[in-house]
């Protein structure tokens, strides 16, 4: 009786120890499941203007550099243009990059809690009527320009 009782106590202690160790792990998994991860919709086009890892970190620098070039110097056909981003990344469902919470820009920016101001002035949808027949938006041909961006940070990142 005494031996049995002791064995039960040992087993209970072992279970308790296991539960204590497993507790934080289970809690972490639950937390991870509650956070809505950004859903990145596949873009049209063969490749982005730079690696996805580089773009995640530096797209804002590329856009800021390009906006000054375009507004002040009139350089329109540059690769790192917001219009170019929108033409490839507009959602198939909404046709926009920032209209619905799941759209390309909006989903990542809500995950990172960074307010996005671009689309208070800029159209978040590509101009459908202005697109040529072989344009990515028509989903038949792919025409994003290929090659390497000439940007100092791009060289240093690689």
């Amino acid at each position, binding site marked *: 009786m005494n031996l049995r009782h002791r064995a039960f106590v040992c087993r209970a202690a072992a279970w308790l120890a296991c539960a204590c160790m497993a507790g934080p792990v289970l809690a972490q998994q639950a937390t991870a499941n509650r956070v809505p991860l950004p859903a990145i919709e596949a873009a049209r086009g063969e490749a982005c203007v730079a690696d996805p890892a580089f773009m995640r970190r530096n797209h804002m620098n590329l856009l800021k550099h390009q906006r000054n070039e375009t507004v002040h110097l009139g350089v*329109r056909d540059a690769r790192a243009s917001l219009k170019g981003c929108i033409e490839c990344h507009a959602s198939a469902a909404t046709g926009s990059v920032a209209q619905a919470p799941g759209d390309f820009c909006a989903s990542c920016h809500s995950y990172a809690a960074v307010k996005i101001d671009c689309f208070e002035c800029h*159209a978040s949808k590509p101009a459908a009527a202005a697109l040529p027949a072989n344009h990515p938006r028509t989903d038949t041909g792919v025409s994003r320009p290929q090659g390497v961006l000439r940007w100092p940070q791009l060289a240093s990142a690689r």
Partner: protein
Amino acid sequence: MKSERDSGAKQALSGRRSFLGLAAAGLGGVLIAPGIHLIEVAQAAARGTAPAGANAKVRWGLLIDTTKCASGCSDCVSACNTENGLAAPTRPTDAQWIRKIEIKSVATGRAQSLPVMCQHCAEPPCVDVCPTGASFKRADGIVLVDRHSCIGCRYCIMACPYQARSFVHEPLTAQKPEVPRGKGCVEGCTLCVHRIDAGGGPACVEACASAGHHAMLFGDLNDADSEISHRVREVASKQLRPDLRLDPGVRYQGLA
């Protein structure tokens, strides 16, 4: 804000710097052949470094023939609204980039109708008063607002003698991809800069011509062979308020 101002200053300085650099090279090497002036070398260098975008040798301008501009016709205004995604103004505070005005001489009773928009001055007062550098003149003479830097102070609206600028009071939706506009910024006629950069001309000029009026002519005032240069050489034309000596790029023919 600081970096934007710095970049603007750099752009302004870059021309002078390259000229000084070339001047120093010319003085040091004494290799410039007779008949080749430094200014030509500088212009050639500018062509080599910036092939795309606004060309400093160009001065875009308009010539408006008021004798062909019909009273009551607003084809240019509606073309501007369509091209730039502006709603037809219903209130005095709504944005308007081009407007038709009717004038009548008190002495003779002669009535005239003409469009007035940003006059794209060579010495723009809106640029002088802008505290952030948002109002600027491009190398090819087009006066623009960089909405990224505009804080909406509206000094430029006060400074402009042509009342050519508007303020956007309310949030906008459904902007054109080529023409970003938004609440809290001042805006005005851009001479359809997105079309010019693509090799075209302003929408108002196109609409006026396609309607058969041909009252507006767009072109390079610096190019002696352009149609607009021929016309301003041959017929009498006027700038609005020449007494202010702002040298507008828009000229009016037949204005009395």
